[in-house]
């Protein structure tokens, strides 16, 4: 059977994939950028648009990092405003479980779901750097072994709160004067090692019941967490085979939890460059990567591995002779990528070999080692690739990450979407109203 391709869009943000130096690049803060971006996604009949989160400005060498886009608005506030100017598009945001409490997050998502008529989604993340914690009451510290547990408990507790109203409490009968059918709606009591809360939740059940839940992350724990209760998982894989292996693994875990394969969507993030011909697209893609990795950016990216100040080096020259500093990372702060460089000596050795073999400068190497765009080609080529990956079970669709704000999605919507529609693998209009409808997830109904 032919699968439908699920499409979503990631608003370009604080990351060097976002090209702010292009004359076509607009504001990342002004509402008009969000409005235009959302309008393009809705024109393309996308399932949802997505906002990332970062709660402290990144720093490098003890200074605020100034080479990428800096600054972003508040996620809930933008999504609520977008609900006013869109009709069908799902509204998804990353919200950290570390620097919030379950009651406030449950309340925000229930509100967003009400105000959007059932279009809210939550990408649950957890971060534990004391660096970000310096902006919050709670700080950021928790022993390693308790972090994952708290995140899981946080989500479960938020869901308990969301389920505390069943959906049939409000009758508002003007004649009889009965507003509620029960004197104690929303009652909850939760006690465990992390949360000790009790009382009555104050937001009645929302159209979707709960926000759609996304989970990012590729670890075994992350996969299991997603299989146990998430509605969609982000992942990013370099090859079709790697994507298929991930897909089979994650979908294979669902039965344990009494869930069917269609209950969890696999939606990798994907970058793209589209031009009239494949050759033009390839040329443009190379150009974009140069824009993304300037000489200064290349040095900073190298510092993420070297963990040293490399500002004295020439980005057009060879790699540094000195080795990376091993140990606690002190140079780059507030970045997810730093935490992934678990073995800097091995990375450095591999890069030196690669640079020497090909005679690459620091900048050339950084361009070469950074991920190339996932889809490069003419509209027909990109449509082929996407359809093939979905039909061969490497994914259920993609979250597209344009490199330009706010117009970067337009070329995809205007040229690739019609081709996917012609093939019958992408909707020509929305058939439902909620995000669960768009994702093909069964409605939750009232809570038990």
């Amino acid at each position, binding site marked *: 059977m032919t699968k439908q391709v699920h499409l979503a869009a990631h608003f370009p943000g604080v990351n060097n994939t976002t090209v*702010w*130096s292009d004359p076509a690049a607009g504001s990342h*803060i*002004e*509402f008009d950028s969000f409005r235009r971006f959302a309008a393009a996604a809705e024109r393309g009949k996308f399932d949802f648009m997505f906002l990332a989160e970062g709660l*402290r*400005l990144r720093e490098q060498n003890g200074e*605020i990092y*100034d*080479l990428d886009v*800096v*600054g*972003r*608005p*508040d996620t*809930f*506030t*933008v999504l*609520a*405003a977008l*609900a*006013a*100017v869109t009709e069908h598009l799902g509204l998804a945001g990353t919200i950290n479980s570390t620097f*919030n*409490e*379950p*009651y406030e997050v449950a*309340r*925000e998502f*229930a509100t*967003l779901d*009400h*105000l*959007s*008529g059932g279009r809210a989604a939550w990408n649950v993340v957890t971060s534990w750097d004391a660096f970000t914690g*310096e*902006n*919050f*009451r*709670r700080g950021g510290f928790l022993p390693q072994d308790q972090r994952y547990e708290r995140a899981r408990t946080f989500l479960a507790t938020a869901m308990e709160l969301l389920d505390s109203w069943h959906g049939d409490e*409000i009758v*508002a009968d*003007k004649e009889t*004067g009965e*507003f*509620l*059918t029960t*004197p*104690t709606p*929303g009652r909850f009591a939760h006690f465990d090692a992390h949360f*000790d*809360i*009790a*009382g*009555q*939740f*104050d*937001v*009645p059940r929302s159209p979707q019941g709960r926000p759609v839940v996304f989970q990012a992350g590729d670890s075994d724990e992350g996969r299991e967490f997603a299989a146990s209760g998430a509605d969609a998982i982000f992942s990013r894989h370099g090859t079709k085979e790697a994507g298929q292996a991930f897909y089979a693994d994650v979908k294979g875990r669902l039965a344990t939890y009494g869930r069917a394969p269609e209950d969890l969507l696999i939606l990798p993030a994907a970058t793209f460059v589209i031009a009239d011909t494949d050759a033009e697209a390839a040329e443009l893609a190379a150009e974009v990567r140069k824009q993304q990795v300037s000489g*200064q950016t290349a040095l900073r990216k190298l510092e993420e591995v070297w963990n040293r100040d490399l500002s004295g080096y020439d980005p057009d020259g060879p790699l540094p002779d000195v080795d990376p500093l091993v140990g606690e990372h002190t140079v780059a702060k507030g970045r997810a990528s730093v935490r992934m460089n678990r073995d800097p000596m091995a990375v450095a050795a591999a890069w030196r070999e690669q640079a020497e073999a090909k005679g690459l400068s620091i900048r050339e190497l950084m361009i070469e080692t950074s991920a190339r765009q996932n889809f490069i080609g003419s509209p027909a080529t990109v449509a082929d690739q996407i359809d093939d990956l979905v039909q061969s079970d490497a994914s259920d669709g993609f979250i597209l990450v344009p490199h330009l704000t706010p117009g970067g999605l337009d070329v995809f919507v205007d040229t690739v979407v019609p081709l996917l529609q012609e093939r019958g693998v992408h909707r020509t209009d929305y058939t439902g109203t909620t995000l669960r409808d768009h994702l093909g997830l069964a409605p939750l109904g009232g809570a038990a």
Partner: protein
Amino acid sequence: MTTPVHLAVALDGAGWHPAAWREPDARPTELLTAGYWVDLVTEAERGLLDLVTLEDGFALQSSDRWAPDERTDQVRGRLDAVQVAARVAPLTSSIGLVPTAVVTHTEPFHLSKAIATLDFVSGGRAGVRVKVGSAVEAAHLGRRQLPDLRELDPGDPVAQAGLRELFDEAADWVEVVRRLWDSWEDGAEIRDVATGRFVDRDKLHYVDFAGRHFSVRGPSITPRPPQGQPLVAALAHQAIPFELVGRSADLGFVTPTDAADATAVLGEIRAAQAAAGRAEETVHVLGDLVVFLDADEATARARKDRLDERAGAAFTSDAAVFVGTPSGLADLVEEWSAAGLSGVRLRPATLPHDLRQVTTGLVPELQRRGLFRTAHEAATLRGLLGLPRPANRYAAV
């Protein structure tokens, strides 16, 4: 020449009377929908009001200040006020939007960026009304415990000390939020292609606040909003909250019983302002009034009686209650204005009825008397209130 007055409307549920939801024009099954709030704020904007406030809290509404009341005959359940304001913002163009934030239970970092973002999505019309939290709410959040003061007389020294601590924390909260709004100087985003720099980091500032309840490093993740400093408002009934208004707010809501009381309350706020070194700054003070309005007084009175009967008790409020005609209300507004208040914040007893009486009755009457604007004269809330866009505390002069 008489001074023009400022008019605000406080929106909450189906209105401020507990039986308001049973009125013929009430929409009690739509209180959780965007359309309901858009309609109300749009009506207020048509009436050229300065701003609307939106009530909020982290607990179900209750007739008992200290605990849930388990009543089934009144409106219960609500939405986050900042999001409601954001949802309404793109569909309105000139009215101020002032949601309530419970400072005791929230992160100043989160609220700072939320209100800054509300200012961006509304084009400079955002404010925030700060409110302290309760012990019931604390049990919902789990971050802390608050003393249960219900057994104590409000004048008891222990109760006063508890109140003092909550309001000192509120002042810290406002201080952090204000610093974060200034933590990006205007023009910090430079997009200098030649040097590859997106921002001028010399124009980004750590706020380095360290207080009893929280420490915040900064800078904000959100640039300085259009108004520079969105408006900070607080409702105050007694000395300690009056001090918060004097120290920290741009706008105070007070609950005088009459014009003489208004003058006395205003005196306390002005003294607190002077003590905080803010004597030269404009702090607008609006008198709160619950209003039941009809074309003639007898109708208004009969309507209130009917509502009271349905609620099973005569209506009481922390604010003075006005029952009568828009013209009679205009007299009272004029009187309070003469007593020194900048205007009034009206709490419609029922929605939309009493709101419409304000926009189509009171407003034209005040306009006839030359006391109210005939068009929104500014695009920002600060502009409507005649407040300048403040200089940034971190900018070099």
